[in-house]
């Protein structure tokens, strides 16, 4: 008898039609249905939590006279959670570009990166007016820190400080593009492989491209060598910019050198694991995953005046003398910017 009722239930699920004619047919999931009161409570739980937290925040402010729980930050986190839920609902109904970039998905992570930008590294950014609101541009920055947090912060700075926020598309060493999970995240958030053809294609689509000519030579340098810029490759980024007719905006980043103070490199281990370097910091690998937490250094980012390489005809891209001269000019601007910002910074952590 009871078997029959179960069979009837699964074969003909209860179908409810809402009042509107356009409404979808709602099929309740088979299984136990909670009582109405419990369902209502579950639906409203986030609202009650926010209200309670808001009351607590007001109470604490009145008690101590200071902001203990910042409701704006709390709302940002709630928004982040809500956005993630919405993203999960879109199924396959989204479009990525030819490089695998999903803008909506990337923007959903902004609250987290904004919190790191404002509260953790307290980034001070200057010269944002040098980044054009539209059109092709090549951002060239110094590279430091064992993991590429500097790229993340430059991208976040463009969203926090720029009047017309734009996604910067960073170029990544091909080695990282072959790593599981990492390559997936990098591609999805707009990064692409560091190949001249990719740079050209992105610039021709009038994108903002971010390149670190130092590459892993920059991120893998020891703490003792901090703020000394490495060789800028063979100036390939200048040739690409000349061919695509894009101005170069040099960017100096101060602070990324101290997030993982690299005391030593273990080349043997790096070779074994197929990595470009194996860092040893005061915390890594001794503390395990805890050692991967970056230190809260004080950061400064400066965008410099554009180097207008687009005034040269495309043929000039083959002129090695010109290319190397422009490459050195960009490198010197960045190096000088690094020194200037180091002077402006009062201490490593304040």
């Amino acid at each position, binding site marked *: 008898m009871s078997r029959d009722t179960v069979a009837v239930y699964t074969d003909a699920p209860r179908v409810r039609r809402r009042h509107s004619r356009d409404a979808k047919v709602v099929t309740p999931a088979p299984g136990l249905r909670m009582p109405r009161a419990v369902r209502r409570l579950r639906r409203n739980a986030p609202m009650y939590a926010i209200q309670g937290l808001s009351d607590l925040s007001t109470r604490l402010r009145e008690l101590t006279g200071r902001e203990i729980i910042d409701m704006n930050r709390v709302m940002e986190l709630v928004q982040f959670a809500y956005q993630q839920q919405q993203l999960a609902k879109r199924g396959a109904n989204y479009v990525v570009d030819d490089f695998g970039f999903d803008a909506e998905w990337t923007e959903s992570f902004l609250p987290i990166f904004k919190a790191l930008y404002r509260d953790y590294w307290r980034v001070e950014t200057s010269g944002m007016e040098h980044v054009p609101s539209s059109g092709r541009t090549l951002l060239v920055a110094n590279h430091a820190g064992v993991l590429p947090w500097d790229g993340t912060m430059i991208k976040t700075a463009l969203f926090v400080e720029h009047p017309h926020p734009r996604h910067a598309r960073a170029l990544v060493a091909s080695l990282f593009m072959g790593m599981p999970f990492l390559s*997936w995240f990098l591609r999805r958030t707009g990064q692409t492989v560091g190949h001249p053809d990719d740079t050209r294609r992105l610039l021709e689509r009038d994108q903002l491209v971010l390149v670190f000519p130092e590459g892993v030579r920059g991120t893998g340098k020891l703490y003792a060598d901090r703020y000394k810029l490495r060789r800028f490759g063979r100036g390939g980024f200048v040739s690409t910019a000349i061919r695509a007719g894009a101005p170069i905006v040099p960017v100096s980043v101060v602070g990324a050198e101290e997030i993982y103070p690299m005391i030593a490199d273990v080349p043997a281990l790096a070779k074994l694991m197929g990595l470009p370097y194996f860092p040893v910091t005061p915390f890594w690998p001794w503390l395990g995953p805890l050692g991967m937490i970056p230190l809260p250094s004080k950061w400064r980012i400066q965008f410099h005046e554009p180097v207008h390489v687009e005034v040269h005809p495309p043929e000039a891209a083959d002129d090695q003398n010109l290319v190397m001269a422009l490459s050195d000019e960009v490198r010197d601007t960045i190096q000088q910017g690094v020194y200037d910002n180091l002077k402006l910074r009062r201490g490593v952590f304040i």
Partner: protein
Amino acid sequence: MVTPPFPSRVLITGVSNPLGAEVARRLAPQVPWLFGCDVDDPVSANEDMDFVHADMRQSVIGKLVRRLRIDTVVHLAVIVDSGRGDRATHETNVIGTMNVLAGCAGPASSVKRLVVKSSQAVYGARPEYPSVLAEEMASLSRGESSITRDLIELEQLSHDFALRNPECRVARMRLGYRVTRETSLGRYLSQPLIPTFAGFDPRLQLLAEEDAAEAIALAALGKQEGAFNVAGDGVVLLSQAITIMGARSVPVLPPYAGWASRMAIRSTTGVRLPSHLAEVLMFGSVVDCARLHQEFAWKPAHSSRAAIDLFAQGKSEDVIEAPSPPQEYELQRYLQRRKRERRHGAGHAALTAGP
């Protein structure tokens, strides 16, 4: 004297598969004489085509071309995606193409147009490759998989042939990955649970079967030379494709272990995944079709997304329905005989070929 229409005598090699049959169907109303050959029986009888059994791996193709005074050869007898062994595939792809090219060569040859089917698999897939591959980047590939090696060799042979025979225009059509019930990718995506490589969500670019046939037919009727990428607009992520197919992905395959993963897929789902596809399912493959759009003034009607949507709805199969090759062969023979008798009756010149 009126110049005869070009192309007037077209030979399609490797016609006995859905793509070949569809190309024949599209070319039939546009050319006066259409011939098809293959080792296997045709999958779809076509009244306007004369079918002959011929093995490309033998030098019979040269005789066929000379006796039939063929002016256009559409070489579709190239296996990209099959469960057959590497050696058998190599034999068909490389030795078969060598025979076709030898048959078309020579200053006195009547062949003025050659269309060679190739594939996007000629590029292979590696993380260090540019994100969007243009035609000249085939040289990047070091031939990690046997199909890629075969295709590179085959294209090199065709390229050399074009240089040595300037009066014959050669087009190499690099068709994108297609999803039908016949392709490994299609069968792989049709599983309810799809094992994928952990930590990878590759970009796929797909080509609808109709668009592939249209591209080959256009090339056969056209004059364009060189290699052309043919694929739908835009990209679809593997995870998107799996969602569209109503399946679930199971990210369990260990990265980089291509061979072991292929064995695992074969033992769990029964799909034989060629090694070049395993690479694509890790690193993705996207090509630049700007050259096709420019020189053919045509682009595939279906985007990558539309191609997978069509497959999910089960519509990509309506090109050829329920083929039964031996019966189709009998039907083909009957249609040919009837047509020939009709022509005799009407006083037209007899067809010189045919079984």
